[in-house]
């Protein structure tokens, strides 16, 4: 092995000596013991490595991440592993059934303990009003709400439970803390898949997420102007435009949403 080759090997030899037993490094290391230039080179390299390693390991993880992971685990354990999540086709099938159930029943989206939405009803899927819960179910179906933080296995179970017990109201009352994952104040566009994207943004301290997907996904949804509905303390505005369906979701007051959309 030439000196140049030794240098190249020493260049990627780590301080932790993970490669100590690697024969391909042995020659270079042996040479470094007796060659002052190689020795100095190795020392500089290792100093650099240590600095980078230290700096990288000094990058802090977000506060609360550990607890949230443990909380997620606890939640997923309570519900048990979901066959639906393990078998996507089954999930789609079940979701399709739920979708039919959702739109096939005359729905009253409000229960007695709720306020503000007591008169919202969905008589037909063709009705523009149907678009909002339809879109929400669709978002769940497509896994958009299935990030680790905001959609778990039990959500399918909750969905089924809501359908059977309360007339097909999807479980969308996600805890506010879950908004964190949507990127507070950021302007990042998260393209979920080829068909759906979500943009999260903040306006005057309120968090908004705008889901956009191709109109062909819900062909039965007719062209509609922005329609706003409040469900479980969250406001959903849905409209179609240029072959796309938009769902704006937020915990802000309805007035703010209508002002934002200029409707």
């Amino acid at each position, binding site marked *: 092995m030439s000196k*140049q080759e030794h*240098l*190249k*090997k020493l*260049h*990627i030899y*780590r301080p*932790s000596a*993970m*490669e100590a037993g*690697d024969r391909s490094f042995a020659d270079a290391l042996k040479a470094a013991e007796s060659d002052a230039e190689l020795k100095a*080179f190795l020392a*500089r*390299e290792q*100093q*650099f*490595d240590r*600095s*980078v*390693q*230290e*700096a*990288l*390991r*000094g*990058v*802090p*993880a*977000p506060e609360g*991440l*550990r607890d*949230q*992971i*443990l909380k*997620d*685990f606890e939640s*997923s*354990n309570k519900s048990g*592993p979901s066959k639906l*999540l*393990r078998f996507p086709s089954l999930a789609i099938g079940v979701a399709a059934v739920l979708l039919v159930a959702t739109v096939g029943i005359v729905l009253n989206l409000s229960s007695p303990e709720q306020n503000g939405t007591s008169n919202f009803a969905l008589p037909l899927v063709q009705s523009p009003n149907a678009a909002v819960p339809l879109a929400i179910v669709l978002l769940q179906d497509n896994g958009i709400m299935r*990030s*680790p*933080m905001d959609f778990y296995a039990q959500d399918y179970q909750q969905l089924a439970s809501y359908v059977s017990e309360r007339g097909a109201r999807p479980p969308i009352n996600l805890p506010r803390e879950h908004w*964190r*994952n*949507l*990127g*507070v104040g*950021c302007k*990042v566009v*998260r*393209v*979920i*898949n*080829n068909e759906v994207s979500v943009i999260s943004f903040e306006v005057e301290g309120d968090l908004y997420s705008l889901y956009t997907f191709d109109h062909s996904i819900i062909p039965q949804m007719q062209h509609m102007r922005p329609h706003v509905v409040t469900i479980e303390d969250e406001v959903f505005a849905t409209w179609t435009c240029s072959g796309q369906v938009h769902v704006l979701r937020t915990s802000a007051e309805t007035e703010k949403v209508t002002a934002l959309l200029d409707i």
Partner: protein
Amino acid sequence: MPPHSSAPDFTTLVDDYYQSLYRFALSLIRNESEAADLVQQTFLIWARKGDSLKDASKVKSWLFTTLYREFIRSNRRNKRMEPAEEEPMELMLPPTEVDYSVKVDSKILLERLQDLEQNYREPLVLFYLEDLSYKEIADILNVPIGTVMSRLSRGKTALKNLLLTKLEK
């Protein structure tokens, strides 16, 4: 990280690896909340499938591999993934006689890492972050060991130059 003779309990596993996984995710994604998402997703997958891992010594590698695959999966969806080009196994020689003894700041390091091509950044972060062998890094990134070494060499040289440029400014 402490070794475990049998599969560690979930809390121990989280304590051992969530920070390293987050740093790796952050180097891939460049967005803190999305990196946190990715780490959470990784542990959720572990919660569902981890019991299928028979060799407890491979937990770390399994977690990093899972996180990376999840990242790739989401990137494919996004169609933002740059096509990986195989480069010949070639180790680059760094500039010599340059003093890198200056302490590297974490924030600056992250910025400079983001300036590196993804192909170089990925093995480099794994190289520094955890005591993963070249074989493990190769398995995680699903590339040959020779490619890992080549990318590490080039990546390290590029990172040095980037940091040096920053220091000179």
